C-alpha cells in the first residue's frame, strides 16, 4: 500500500535525522554559538517532519478512506431463533435430570443394601426449577450385575410352593432411604416415596 510505504519512509527519515543530530550535538562547540546551531537544528527537524505532508498532498491519498476502511470487521448477522433457545433449555433440563438421577442412584446404592431400578423426579416450575418437588425411588434387592459375556448357569431345581412370599424390606429400610435422600438433597420427607419392586414378578410393592 502506498500509504504504508509513505509512513515507513517518513519514520525512517525522522529516526536517521535524530541520530545525526545527536552526533552533531556531540561535536558542537560549547560557547555562545551553541544556541544558534540549536535554532538551525530545530528548523531542520520541523522541515523533516512537515516535508512529507507536501508530498502526501501531491499523492492525493484520501486518508479518511484509508483510516476508516482499514480492518473493518465483517458484519455478522445473528439469526435469533426462538426454537433454538427452547431446544437449548430442554437439553439443559434433560442433562440436569440425568445427572441428578445418576447421583441419587449412586448415593442409595452406596449407603444402603438396595439397588435403584428407577427414579421418578418432578421439578418445580418457574424460577425454582432446579429444586426437586417430589421423588419416587423404585428399589429392589441388591444383586451383583452380570459380567459381560454369555454363560450358561446350571439350572437349579425349582421348588414350587403355594406361598411364594418374597422377603419385603422393613419400614425402617424405607425410612432409612428417605432420611438419606432428605439429608443429602434437602427434599421434604413427605414428598419422597420409596417403592419396592418385587424382582421377577413385575409387580410393585409399596
Amino acid at each position, binding site marked *: 500500500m502506498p500509504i504504508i510505504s509513505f509512513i515507513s519512509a517518513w519514520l525512517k*527519515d525522522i529516526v536517521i535525522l535524530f541520530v545525526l543530530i545527536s552526533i552533531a550535538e556531540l561535536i558542537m562547540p560549547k*560557547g*555562545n554559538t551553541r544556541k544558534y546551531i540549536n535554532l538551525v537544528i530545530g528548523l531542520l527537524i520541523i522541515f523533516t517532519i512537515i516535508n512529507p505532508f507536501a508530498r502526501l498532498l501531491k499523492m492525493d491519498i484520501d486518508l479518511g478512506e484509508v483510516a476508516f476502511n482499514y480492518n473493518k470487521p465483517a458484519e455478522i448477522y445473528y439469526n435469533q431463533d426462538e426454537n433454538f433457545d427452547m431446544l437449548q433449555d430442554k437439553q439443559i433440563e434433560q442433562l440436569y435430570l440425568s445427572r441428578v438421577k445418576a447421583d441419587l442412584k449412586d448415593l442409595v446404592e452406596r449407603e444402603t443394601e438396595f439397588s435403584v431400578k428407577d427414579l421418578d423426579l418432578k421439578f418445580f416450575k418457574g424460577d425454582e426449577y432446579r429444586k426437586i418437588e417430589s421423588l419416587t425411588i423404585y428399589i429392589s434387592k441388591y444383586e451383583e450385575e452380570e459380567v459381560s459375556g454369555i454363560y450358561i448357569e446350571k439350572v437349579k431345581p425349582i421348588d414350587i410352593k403355594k406361598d411364594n412370599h418374597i422377603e419385603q424390606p422393613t419400614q425402617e429400610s424405607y425410612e432409612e432411604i428417605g432420611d438419606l435422600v432428605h439429608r443429602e438433597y434437602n427434599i421434604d420427607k413427605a414428598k419422597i416415596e420409596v417403592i419396592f419392586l418385587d424382582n421377577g414378578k413385575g409387580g410393585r410393592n409399596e
Partner: protein
Amino acid sequence: MEIIKIVGIGILATFAIVLVKEIRPEFPLFISLITGVIIFTMVLGELSYVVETLNTLGRKVNIEFTYFSTLLKIIGMAYLIEFGGQISRDAGQENIASKIELGGKVIIMVMAIPILLSLMELILKILP
C-alpha cells in the same frame, strides 16, 4: 596515539608559558596561539572524518541534503569562531573576541535563512 600527542603538547606549552612568563611577558600569548593552532590542525583530520560520516548518513535521509550540509558548515564555523574568540580573550582583547563572535553569529544566521525560508514556503503550501 593522537590523544597522547595532544595532551603532551598541551602540558609542554603550559610549562613553557609558566617558565617564560617571568622573563618575557609577551611570549606566553604566542605560545598559546601556536599551541592552539597545532592542536586544532591535529584534531581537524579526525573532525573531518566525523563530518564525512555524517555527510554520508545525511544522504540517506530524504530531506534536502543541502540543509544538512549547511548544518555541518555552521558547526565548523562555530568552531572557528570559538577558536578565534578564545585567542583574542587570551590576549586580553575581550572587545575583539566579542566582535568575532558577533560576525560569526550573523553569518550563521545568514546561512540559516534559506532553511527558514523553505520551511515557511512548505508550511504555506500545506495550509489550504
